């Protein structure tokens, strides 16, 4: 693994029965990156995130994070090491308030905040993610835009070094997408490395400095946003052979 990489994925494959959802994926993420992951539906993007945080174990391959192997670690242990993910289909604790949702992450995440320290931290994160006005609302009554931000707020509250955002812009209107892009830049500027799966190619290109393209579980391209978008293999994957 390169000496400057924060996260290194080496030959990671994941098999579901006869389906090879990920096939020998390799890439490195440097500290401070906003690393975009794009690809058509079913390309294996979410499976890749699940493997990174330990929600799924890779069938083979190695994942190195901060100089140690984390593949095979359970999800909660990976979080305590400093890598966390959000869910594409939001999974709030609906019977709890927004504050309680975030406080749990602050308490049990890598930060292990307690007492007034935790309270301050939670308030700060709600402010940053624009949820302060909903602090005492039940998570079950939020709009989809707010729920997406709650996913981000909870993940941030665990105090990660790497945050994996799984389609946090899905279902948002253009104004909300602008807000989400600003939030992602702020997260990067606060020193957290970002991996993001996103269908809005425009948005990914706008915030990422590197992009990985998956198709049918294979890595088909990796590089700067412009280079990746001009790659013939990527154009074929998105638009079909006719586009050439």
């Amino acid at each position, binding site marked *: 693994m390169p000496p400057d990489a924060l996260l290194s994925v080496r030959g990671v494959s994941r098999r579901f029965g006869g389906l090879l959802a990920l096939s020998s994926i390799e890439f490195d993420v440097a500290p401070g990156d906003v690393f975009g992951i794009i690809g058509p539906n079913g390309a294996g993007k979410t499976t890749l995130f699940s493997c990174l945080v330990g929600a799924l174990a890779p069938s083979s391959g190695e994942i190195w994070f901060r100089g140690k192997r984390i593949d095979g670690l*359970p999800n*909660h242990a990976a*979080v305590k090491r400093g890598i966390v993910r959000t869910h594409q289909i939001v*999974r709030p*604790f609906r019977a709890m308030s927004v504050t309680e949702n975030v406080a*749990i992450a602050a*308490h049990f995440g890598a930060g292990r905040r307690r007492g007034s320290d935790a309270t301050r931290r939670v308030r700060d994160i709600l402010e940053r993610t624009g949820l302060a006005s909903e602090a005492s609302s039940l998570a079950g009554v939020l709009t989809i835009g707010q729920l997406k931000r709650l996913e981000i707020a909870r993940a941030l*509250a*665990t105090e990660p070094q790497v945050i994996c955002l799984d389609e946090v812009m899905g279902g948002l209107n253009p104004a909300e997408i602008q807000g989400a892009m600003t939030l992602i830049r702020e997260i990067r500027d606060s020193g957290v490395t970002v991996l993001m799966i996103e269908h809005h190619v425009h948005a990914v290109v706008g915030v990422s400095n590197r992009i990985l393209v998956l198709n049918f579980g294979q890595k088909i391209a990796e590089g700067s946003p412009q280079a990746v978008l001009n790659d013939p293999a990527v154009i074929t994957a998105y638009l079909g052979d006719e586009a050439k």
Partner: protein
Amino acid sequence: MKFVRYAFCLASALFVLSAPFFLERGTLNDLWNLALAVTLASAWNILGGFAGQVSLGYSAFLGIGAYTTALLSLRGVDPFLTLPLAAVLAALFSVAIGLPAFRLRGPYFTIATIGVGEAVRVCAASVSFTGGSSGLRMPAGSFDFNHNYFSMMILAILTIALAAYVKKSAFGRALAAIRQDIDAAEALGINSTRFKLAAHALSAAVVAVAGSLYAINFQYIAPGSVFDFQLSLNIVLMPIIGGVGTLVGPVLGALIVSTLQIKLLSMPMLRDSFLFIYGGLLIFLMLFEPKGVMGIRDRVIAFFRRIARPRTGSADAA
């Protein structure tokens, strides 16, 4: 409102602790049975309600407590000194079953616990040192009415206090997160297996101590009484009827179920019908109010709030 609640709890505690000075023995026995039911329901609720892991194998812990106390008492140990050992043994056993069983989720976990409960009963009935299926009689002179009464009341009070403490603690919030979405809880750093094991052990220990007191109270135990599946079922029914996951629900459910049982047992015609009545009650609640009596209470409160504050638009959203 908070003050009223504390005052009510304190008054109830004072009442049951002073009852032997003005109530007759028959009524005190009923109170003992109520306190046992409250203890079992509240203890089960820590795992089943707070963490959402519905176990139908709790008679195993009651039986372990009862047998620990009976076996040691027969060897000359003071019955009340056996309580800590009963708690520890049951907690250890709960971890031993929990490690494989908690890999299962939802109804699969529940079914596994039925198997464990039944297996323990069969084992207790077929090995010789437990007295086999004919059970064990406690040694003569091991019963003292006052000790027996007060220890059950104190256990019930401590169990409610423990449940209240757990619910408010960070541990309790982790259990609530696990109940609502176990994968999301894991994704935020919660070691769900460890918390489920801890909740299981805590409630198993309490139920085992209740089992010890059961042996002391009834002076005779057998696999058919303390390891009974019907008992496991009752332990689950009480919190469900009262309101799973709340503090008051299990207490309320225990009072309702035990009172029903005491009343029905005293009517020869209805003696065997209590299962029908529980079944009917359960079906009714599952269909119309899965949150039990506490859910009905919430609805009534919401109804009166709506009447008191008519149509301001935001009231519906809230």
